[in-house]
């Protein structure tokens, strides 16, 4: 399928290079490329459809909104992907982000410098991840149970610490991370008001991209990444081959907690308020993003690029349906169908 799509490409140079690449690939790599193309293609299709059905959809402003919405799903999704690759699951990320954000907010209230408070927030997330890892590897509980427990504990802690009330008046500086952007260019218009020439790259989007690249690098190029796939493929074999299975899993849960922490401070910064109720059900979006992107819940299969595509699919779907005035109930139904459909197609492709 992708072969035909490529041949419509006008640039002969690119075509030749691709053909050469293609011929060097083996079956699995080809399947992977086809899958990516299929995913990107459906993403494009969504964009086209929504651009036609809604005037406001295809605009710079809305692109900003969508990318910002994508950041939280993607940040959580990347972490959850790493855990799922080991054959586990992390249900706690939505709550952990709330705890991380509220810790940061409360510390700012306490007079801590912003950077220190935010670092503590991220650290809190990482500690939650490490506790998950500890319960899974040392207490030998099923990841589902371990992280379900953490989901309740972290949420309860966030509510308890704040008395269930949002922590506001954190100062403008607290909002920079979530609302600022890089290379934002303004010019003063004739009427004396500033005019936006280039909206810039929002910091949250930048953070998302950097994190995606770092984690993808770890997975592809470092031994720990190789071990993550190995443990998810066959834990017993990995252990017998001398892989330290426990520390590999520990790393995965800590990464997920760390990214949930990052997501927490970014989200609270965007609201300039620490919301203990933020992020409810986000873990499900994160898992859905991973799954739509081709991650197997059985472990051992999945990529960060896939999860990124999955995150975009979900947020574009949400945004586009909103723009078309589709009720949130119908949205849930549609997204539910998309998840089942995506996984079923993947299942068909892998069946032999």
């Amino acid at each position, binding site marked *: 399928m992708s072969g035909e799509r490529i041949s419509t490409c006008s640039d002969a140079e690119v075509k030749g290079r691709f053909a050469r690449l293609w011929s060097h690939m083996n079956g*699995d*790599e080809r399947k992977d490329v086809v899958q990516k193309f299929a995913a990107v293609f459906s993403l494009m299709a969504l964009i086209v459809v929504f651009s036609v059905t809604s005037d406001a959809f295809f605009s710079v402003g809305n692109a900003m909104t969508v990318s910002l919405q994508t950041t939280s799903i993607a940040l959580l999704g990347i972490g959850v992907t790493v855990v799922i690759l080991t054959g586990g699951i992390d249900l706690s990320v939505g709550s952990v982000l709330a705890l991380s954000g509220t810790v940061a907010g409360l510390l700012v209230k306490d007079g801590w410098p912003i950077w220190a408070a935010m670092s503590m927030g991220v650290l809190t997330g990482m500690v939650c991840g490490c506790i998950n890892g500890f319960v899974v590897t040392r207490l030998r509980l099923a990841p589902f149970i371990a992280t379900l427990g953490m989901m309740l504990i972290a949420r309860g802690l966030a509510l308890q610490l704040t008395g269930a009330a949002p922590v506001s008046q954190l100062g403008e500086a607290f909002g920079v991370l979530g609302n600022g952007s890089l290379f934002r260019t303004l010019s003063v218009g004739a009427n004396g008001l500033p005019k936006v020439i280039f909206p810039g790259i929002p910091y949250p989007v930048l953070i998302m991209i950097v994190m995606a690249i770092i984690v993808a690098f770890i997975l592809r190029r470092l*031994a720990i990444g190789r071990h993550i796939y190995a443990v998810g493929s*066959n834990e017993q074999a990995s252990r017998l081959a*001398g892989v330290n299975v426990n520390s590999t899993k520990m790393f995965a849960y800590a990464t997920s907690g760390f990214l949930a922490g990052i997501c927490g401070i970014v989200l609270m910064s965007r609201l300039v308020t620490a919301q203990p109720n933020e992020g409810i059900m986000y873990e499900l979006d994160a898992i859905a993003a991973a799954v739509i992107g081709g991650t197997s819940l059985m472990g051992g299969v999945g990529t960060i690029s896939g999860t990124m595509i999955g995150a975009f699919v979900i947020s574009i779907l949400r945004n586009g349906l909103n723009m078309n005035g589709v009720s949130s109930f119908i949205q849930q139904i549609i997204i539910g169908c998309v998840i089942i459909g995506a996984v079923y197609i993947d299942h068909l492709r892998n069946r032999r």
Partner: protein
Amino acid sequence: MVAPAPIVEMKNIGKRFGGIHAVENVSVELRPGEVVGVLGHNGAGKSCLMKILSGAMSRTDGTIMVNGEEVALANPIEARHCGIETIYQSLALADHLDAPANLFLGRELKTRFGTLDDKRMEMEARQALRQLNPNFKNITDTVLNMSGGQRQVIAIARAIYFNARVVIMDEPTAALGPSETAMVAELIEKLREQGIGIFLISHDLNDVFDLCDRVMVMKNGQNVGTHAIDEVTKDDLLNLIILGKLPDNWSPRNLVAS
């Protein structure tokens, strides 16, 4: 003929799970270039004994000497440092990784920046695999797509590449077809020629007679007899496996014949 010094000596090995004795007071040794068959009923304790030697299971009693030195073998990494490699039928490989990644799993080659050196691993793996089986082509497929024989070649290549002195094979041919079984038998010969000692767990008495120099029979966790292969018949072995003893009037086959 002076027998070479044993590479492995297991003495009075015991393993208890709560009340049950999976392995009880078993002693056995292995010399370079020797294939020792480990026989016995299902649940006799063969796998447990071999897991103890491969560092995958702790023992409750006994000592293990490798090259005359006592070793702890607390984990698979330590066993590998002693030159002990294990080849399992079903557990051996990570399905979603390719052949080079599996061959180097846990011992990845790295560039000077500390990143994975996939190019070199692929090159080395290709060489190691072709040496064992010239027809090995699709080495960068995930091993999920490979035949049982190919998977076995990867596991054996791993042992050779890392200079194993002792190879443990737990039912290496249990899920293979006839031609692949023949190939594994050939590989075992190659290992033996290189002076590697082999423990071979097998339920197939034909294989045992074809490949082994000595056999050890286990029953209820105990060693009920260690014999040179040419002094026993199939019936003798079946007696040992099922009843745990040789017939009352038994005498070595090779002596009877001569």
